[in-house]
């Protein structure tokens, strides 16, 4: 029973993670990953700064949405 529950939780988590990925919820995590890998000397943006920057850049660089 406990094993089944674990499988179920893992499944639900997986679905949530996938959904989050599609929505773009993991953008900050990916940015941090990139920042680390690229080995910049400067500190990365904080989470709040990152999301601000992201939507502010969309202001001048809109993404199309289809019909």
């Amino acid at each position, binding site marked *: 029973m406990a094993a089944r529950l674990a499988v179920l939780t893992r499944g639900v988590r997986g679905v949530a993670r996938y959904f989050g990925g*599609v929505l773009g919820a993991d953008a900050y995590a990916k940015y941090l990953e990139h920042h680390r890998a*690229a080995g910049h000397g400067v500190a990365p943006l904080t989470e709040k700064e990152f999301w601000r920057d992201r939507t502010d850049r969309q202001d*001048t660089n809109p993404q199309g*949405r289809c*019909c």
Partner: protein
Amino acid sequence: MAETPDQRRNASGERGVVATDPALPPTAIDEEVREAEDRKWTPGKIALWAGIALLGGLAWFMLAIIRGETVNAIWFVFASVCTYLIGYRFYSKVIERYITRPDDRRATPAEYKADGKDYVRTDRNVLFGHHFAAIAGAGPLVGPVIAAQMGYLPGTIWIIIGVVLAGAVQDYLVMFFSMRRGGRSLGQMAREELGVIGGTAALIATLLIMVIIVAILALVVVNALGESPWGVFSVGMTIPIALFMGVYLRYLRPGKVMEVSLIGFVLLMAAIVGGGIVAETPWGADIFSLDKVTIAWGLIVYGFIAAILPVWLLLAPRDYLSTFMKIGVIVMLALAIIVVRPEITVPAFSEFASRDNGPVFPGALFPFLFVTIACGALSGFHALISSGTTPKLVEKERQTRFIGYGGMLMESFVAIMALVAAISIDRGLYFAMNSPAALTGGTVETAATWVNSLGLAGVNITPDFLAETARNVGEESIVSRTGGAPTLAVGLAHIMQQFIGGTAMMAFWYHFAIMFEALFILTAVDAGTRVARFMLQDSIGNFVPKFKEHSWRPGAWLCTAIMVGAWGAVLLMGVTDPLGGINTLFPLFGIANQLLAAIALSVCLAIVAKRGTFKYLWIVALPLAFAAVVTITASYQKIFSSTPAVGYFANNAAFSKALADGKTEFGTAKSVAAMEAVVRNTAIQGWLSVIFVVLSIIVIATALLATVKAFRNRADGTAVKDNEDPALPSRVFAPSGLIPTAAERELMAEWDKVPAELRFEKGGHH
């Protein structure tokens, strides 16, 4: 085994130029191993594909040949899914092998331009969902419903065959070529490949087409919300909900996208339920019962404000909500259809299939069915999404087949489900809902009499039935609710109530459907206005450089006002059109969308020719020729047809003559003012058709010239300049499709052993 062009190309040096790091495992599956894997037909694999082919064949047989009194909806699911699988497994591989020729040893823009923001390597399955959410919207939900006038079979064939041979090909090619060019937009590619004339024509055409598309999508919303207090309330509530989400994400809990989307979803459901309660109260019905013209003006004002507000406040949060709903709704609809399996009583070919005077949309099956269903079969608008955003996120070149081709197949499936939902309702009800008020008279009695007088086989509706359906879905009236959205909502409510909740839940499901369609459309309207505004700013910027500064407020506001004014004018024209707006404007929407597809395919044709792939040029030429013939014929008929219902100018002349003769009513226009409106509208629509078709012919002609030139250059050995970014070696590996193959799993295991610090080059781009 025959050589692939890839191998032949080795000699000429196009391939094999990318030297990958020898310290790392291979970044691509060895060509021969993949070939061998692909061509090895184990008994299990043969049985699987034989099974798929047989099931698909049987399903098509049931739909197209047997055509009994009724046909079960499950056959639509089997026919489409089996055809998609075969198209994906076989045809898209032909395209990959002979046209795109991806090379996984090359880094994608997401790798060589990686910035952690716009260029980010994204898991292929996540990107598939992301791309699908960007391309699919209200289009595939609306077109097939309107086209159901002709019966189910023409639409079904076009949606399924069209996507395999045309729509998915376009999406895949545009995505691939844009990826090879660092994620350049369709407009930039057109300019590079077709020169200044072709490029400029493509730009103007794109801009005008966006105006038309936004206007007609807005018209669909207005028609769905007119005189519907419930709908107006719940859709109106999406604005404060989105604003709340925006503030929440900006100030309260930045980055908690999942959390805020769930909160937003719960609030949306509350808004739908609340709408039902509010619409019951006298004050609610009083405040929120708005006529179409008022709603149209509201939408225009809203569109302007939404386009100048910062993205974080309204557009970004609503986009999350819309994506969330999109995926949820589509899964739900598919499940419901598979579980409920409604019986379809609509004939394969209706009485209108062989006529050109159908009440829902005028014109003969060829070409008008093929423009009425654009999204879902072949949608030019996708070229704008497939170039630009998605190519910047692709991890490996080979994944574009799954994401581009596969993503479009998925949208086609949505179109099929919308078609099934629409044809699962009573046929008489369908015509009562989708014919303009000028024909139905607008009341249940006149509508029932008119529908029964059409002489359609098996159709006999009563005023009571129309009134009861309206009551069940919580609406004042459902007569002449044109635009497709309400019909789909009734169909969905009809199916969903058998799945969850029974008749008591029908009103909820109806408004749930209206809500998500409105949500998709409003997101498309916002984003479309913004994209068009920037295109206009850049274009004006060529003459007045100040306009190129995107942060220059007066320029931004002026250009937004011009774009909103343009689509707003078309919207108002549609709302007030005495002939019924959808009926006259929807063909223009489809023509515009398909012309954009013809432009995108023209650009692809020129690129493929320049790459020297002449033998398989037909893969691009076939959908291009079809799109060109369909849209040019449709435009021709819209401009030159002498049948007033079809030709804009014929109608214009008829009404002008009636006015000149001093008549005070003519046809469906009951006053002189209405007659003048028809004269004005038909003139505008006619000239728009002329402009579209002329621009598209210019683009297609320049593409053909570029193709011929490429052919000549090839013949006399002149080097052809390609506009791809230089090939850089990749330092990552990822599988190409949904399920990794054995060889891919093996290679992934090898990569898993590589120490993390070696895996991705450090700061190579800074």
